[in-house]
């Protein structure tokens, strides 16, 4: 990111995850995508009961095991070893996507390449001629969960905005995103476009607008 000389510091990936975790209340059923979203679980205290779901048929994922306690039969959708907490259960893949498509998840948090001010999300393919495309459960999760939050850097490494008027990458879903957590701000997607809820200390709305293609509006 081409950072202006400024007194603000972007959030680290861990800080982004912690910021998102703050907003997840007890009792929600939540699916976390690969990347920063996966880190969110580490920041939800175990006593705040949030029930994490994985596409491969797990409800009630617990903390990652240490090397001595790995169960080789227990991986999440990112193919990482996980644990099952008391109250967890297994379902098959069709039921698992019934959970997703049927709007039983309170929340899904996904990474993305771009989010448009209309809530469109592009997160599965970076060009029209990808060497070997892969979509996984992203499209199902994006249309199915009751709320879709996106966690991503505010701009690309080259400084190109990721919050755009219209996505340039292939779409994952139309009008699906409710909120975006970036390393600089938290923004709701509203009928009037992106509304800024929260920014890192020291950052102004003008600073943020400069790093954003879509027009931002302040929280009223």
């Amino acid at each position, binding site marked *: 990111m081409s950072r202006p000389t400024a007194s603000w510091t972007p959030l680290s990936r861990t800080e982004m995850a912690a910021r998102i975790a703050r907003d997840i209340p007890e009792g929600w059923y939540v699916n976390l995508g690969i990347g920063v979203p996966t880190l969110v679980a580490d920041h939800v205290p175990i*006593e705040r009961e949030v029930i994490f*779901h994985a596409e491969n048929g797990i409800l*009630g994922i617990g903390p990652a095991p240490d090397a001595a306690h790995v169960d080789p039969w227990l991986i999440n959708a990112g193919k990482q070893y996980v644990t099952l907490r008391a*109250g*967890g*259960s*297994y379902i098959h893949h069709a039921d698992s*996507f019934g959970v997703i*498509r049927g709007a039983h998840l309170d929340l899904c948090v996904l990474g993305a390449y771009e989010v448009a001010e209309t809530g469109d999300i592009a997160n599965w393919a970076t060009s029209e001629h990808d060497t070997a495309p892969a979509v996984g459960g992203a499209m199902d999760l994006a249309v199915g969960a009751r709320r879709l939050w996106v966690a991503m850097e505010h701009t690309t490494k080259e400084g190109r905005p990721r919050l755009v008027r219209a996505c340039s990458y292939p779409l994952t879903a139309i009008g699906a995103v409710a909120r975006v957590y970036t390393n600089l701000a938290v923004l709701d997607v509203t009928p009037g476009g992106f509304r800024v809820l929260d920014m890192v200390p020291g950052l102004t709305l003008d600073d943020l607008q400069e790093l954003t293609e879509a027009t931002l509006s302040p929280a009223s």
Partner: protein
Amino acid sequence: MIDKFVASVVDALHGIEDGSTILLGGFGAVGQATHLIEGLIETGAKDLTVVANNAGYGRVGLARLLEAGRVRKLICSFPRIAGSTIFESLYRAGRLELELVPQGTLAERMRAAGAGVPAFFTPTGVGTRLAEGKETREVGGRIHVLEYALPGDVALVEAWQADRWGNLRYRAAGRNFNPVVAMAGRLTIVQTQHVAKLGELDPETVVTPGIFVDRVVHLPHGDPVL
């Protein structure tokens, strides 16, 4: 701490509105949430659409609810069973609308609602009175009927065991429609014979995971009576 248990049938049924669509688990007398169904009478909710395989028998459960005049419409596969006299007299008197649905289509329409599938094609009913007026289409050389998802505002479930996250197991043929209506209800309410501690149910053997369940009431009411 998540705790979906509520203290009473009244608490369990809180907030059910007039005009709601209520999905009932159970097949005949087995696996019916009789106390919850009868509890609907006390809530005062009226003008209900009830979805159930059978239309009740004697003066218990659904038959009592029908007798109390709270049901406007029944969506049902096999309303006429031994003892379904209350249903039959209301139906004959034109005081109850009936939508007759093949049993498998009934189950699949609720499963579709729970799984986010708004409509599907099925070979069942093609060329019969129950498909009259419905859209048909040839797929794979065979004619099929288009059927729509059947979601409920409320689903009433009977379970054998439940824990505080709402994970459920059933007993024998008491399973029947219960896991299906549990998926399809926007508000899924369970009466359970037994309470399990969280973690007591083997995760491999949970039939309805708690994600489909909103409220549970513990009612150790004993065996079904045919």
